[in-house]
């Protein structure tokens, strides 16, 4: 008789990387649906193209590097969706594919694939695109009906963070997404719905999003801005819920998560309050991603009953 021998434990939980990533994709669907009503079918097409190119780039780079294929773990789908959510709906398709290349090949696979990247691939993809194609990345458009205009033409607007005074959107507009912005960031309500799903499924906990959002709001309030407006507008919620909580590039301990979230929040406030660019979430998260190994070391758990070695 042939018996299988292995080290204990002999049973495993049903949670797999694929299931976790699948849950993130499900959580992103409300924002995608909202984007259809705000930007039209173009938003969906751009998202699908970005996802498909991310999956393709992962498959081809694993093939070239002669490594086990990992596209079944869905992480490329998550990266693709989040990257697309950071892009304006009117962006030329080839630019989105270029962003996917940067995210998957340069940031993820060249560092060793899932789990080994030093920064969130989607964020670096967005930053590289933003620097390379500044004008295209900053021209937002909305479909007229939802933006309060007549007709269904695409109307170019600016992100609410760049507007001021009576031009600015109301809180309700910000929640529903009736304003300019990238595909995924505009509807705060859809993002919060996805967040609730992720928390209920145990995929993320609220430490990073909560500390991130609260510290940004507080910082902006200290600087004399409207904190709620700054929380709802721009990419803060998308970043706080879906990018800053990326397992690979955020701390694992509660203490580390709190420091990480506050760090992201303060940096975002700094960029929004003082820098020339109206948006600062992606740079804030990128900087904290780079800090992550140090945070992990500083906030290591203390084992119960551990005896320190004395030489």
């Amino acid at each position, binding site marked *: 008789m042939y018996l299988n021998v292995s080290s204990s434990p002999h049973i495993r939980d049903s949670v797999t990387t694929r299931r*976790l990533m699948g849950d993130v994709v499900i959580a992103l669907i409300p924002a995608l649906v909202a984007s259809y009503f705000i930007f039209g079918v173009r938003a969906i097409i751009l998202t699908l193209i970005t996802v498909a190119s991310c999956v393709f780039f992962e498959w081809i780079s694993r093939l070239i590097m002669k490594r086990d294929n990992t596209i079944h773990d869905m992480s490329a789908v998550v990266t693709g969706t989040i990257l697309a959510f950071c892009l304006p709906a009117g962006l030329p398709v080839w630019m989105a594919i270029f962003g996917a290349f940067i995210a998957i090949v340069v940031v993820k696979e060249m560092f060793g694939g899932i789990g080994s990247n030093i920064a969130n691939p989607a964020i670096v993809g967005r930053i590289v695109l933003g620097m390379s194609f500044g004008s295209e990345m900053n021209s937002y458009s909305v479909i007229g009906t939802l933006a309060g205009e007549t007709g269904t033409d695409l109307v170019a607007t600016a992100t609410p963070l760049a507007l001021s005074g009576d031009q600015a959107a109301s809180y309700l507009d910000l929640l529903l997404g009736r304003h300019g912005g990238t595909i995924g960031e505009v509807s705060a309500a859809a993002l919060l719905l996805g967040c609730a799903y992720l928390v209920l499924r145990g995929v993320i906990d609220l430490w990073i999003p909560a500390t991130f959002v609260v510290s940004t709001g507080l910082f902006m309030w200290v600087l004399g801005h409207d904190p709620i407006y700054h929380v709802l507008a721009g990419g803060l919620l998308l970043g706080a819920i879906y990018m800053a909580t990326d397992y690979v590039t955020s701390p694992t301990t509660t203490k580390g998560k709190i420091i990480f979230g506050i760090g992201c929040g303060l940096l975002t406030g700094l960029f929004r309050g003082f820098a020339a660019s109206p948006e600062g979430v992606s740079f804030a998260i990128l900087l904290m991603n780079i800090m992550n190994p140090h945070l992990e070391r500083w906030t290591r758990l203390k084992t119960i*009953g551990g005896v320190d070695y004395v030489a």
Partner: protein
Amino acid sequence: MFFKKTSRAIGVHPPQNKGTQGMAFVEVNGFKTITIPLNLQVGPGCSALVKKGDPVKVGQKIGEPLGHWSVPAHSSVSGTVVSVKKEILSNGSVADLVAIESDGQQTLDESIKPPAVTDKASFLSAIRDSGLVGLGGAAFPTHVKLNPPDGKTIDTLVINGAECEPYITADDQIMRTRADRIIKGINLVCHYLDISRCLIGVEDNKPEAIKALNDAINSHAGELKAGISVVSVKTLYPTGAEKVLIRYLTDRIVPENGLPADVGVVVLNVGTVSFIADVIDTGMPLIRKFVTVDGSAMNRHGNYDLPIGAPIEDVIEAVGGAKEPIGKVIMGGPMMGVAIDDIRHPILKHTNSLIMAGEKGAKIPKEWNCIHCGRCSRSCPMMLMPSELDMAARQENIDELREFHVMNCIECGSCTYVCPAKRYLVQNIRIGKNLYRQAARKAAK
């Protein structure tokens, strides 16, 4: 801090699968040949007292212990010795194996009589002569455990009835049906070791066992030598791990590399303590074991009273056979048990369950990259960071293994159970522990 670190419950919730809960022990006999290894436990083992062709009786001593840590081996059947030879055991060690062909008579050895116990020394030697080792799974010799080194005072006896492993219900059944024996055994241990407090930890998924124990305490209220209380602990794996149970029940922390005696505690399993009562009353050595037999490959499951040394192959046949090809046999629970390589291996003294998995359950998942989700750290009852230990072990980095307290790992398997990337964390931590031990030994030279 927000919480008291010592009593905070950390762990995992594997599916319990305790389908055999409440099933009475069925005595199974009639095994044609039994094989008894002469080192069933920690320590150097025994030298054989019998040779090929010798007649043996039930309870007859067939192995003489070689050191203080060893306990004697006894025959569980009457019959004739057919061979004494070295073989590889299920745990990978090599030992003399005494094979005895049963005559079916089950003739008792005449020398078996209640031991004369008057003081601690005679109590401990009676326990040692019975061949008793920890029946909970670790097989640590009980007479050594009950005799802590000088300077260590024991003030608390902890009885482990948590049985947190999935599938196993043998201890539950012992508590339900042998609560009187457990209380009697506790009384003896507390009397001879001069211990004033006893805590019985039982998981709250066993209300019947808790009730039986409380009833037994009440009915013996007048004769108790110590304050015995039953503590219901939350059902959470691995509550039954020695260090964890001590922490929950007494708020004391056993240090890394330390023993419960370092914090004034001795822990006995419910099976062990009830056997102590039996052996003082009858002098019958440890030759039978209560075992849960379960698993998806089996036709029937249940709790059985089996002779030690019965080949697993014959046990499977005797309790109803397998309905599908067996892919994996686990001796012990699914979280910490040992997957054995051959079904001809015998039932050992510390075997508390046999789980036969079909080919589907035997599959070993492929491991993928760590995604740093932190689930392993959050599930670790010792608050270690298993993914870092795993990395340090793979890199053979002794300094990091020491810095991350690899020796504090209790190998409960919670981290590996929850890992979404299916990494072999405990397996690598075990390798890391060995690397660390080797390095420490080299440094000591």
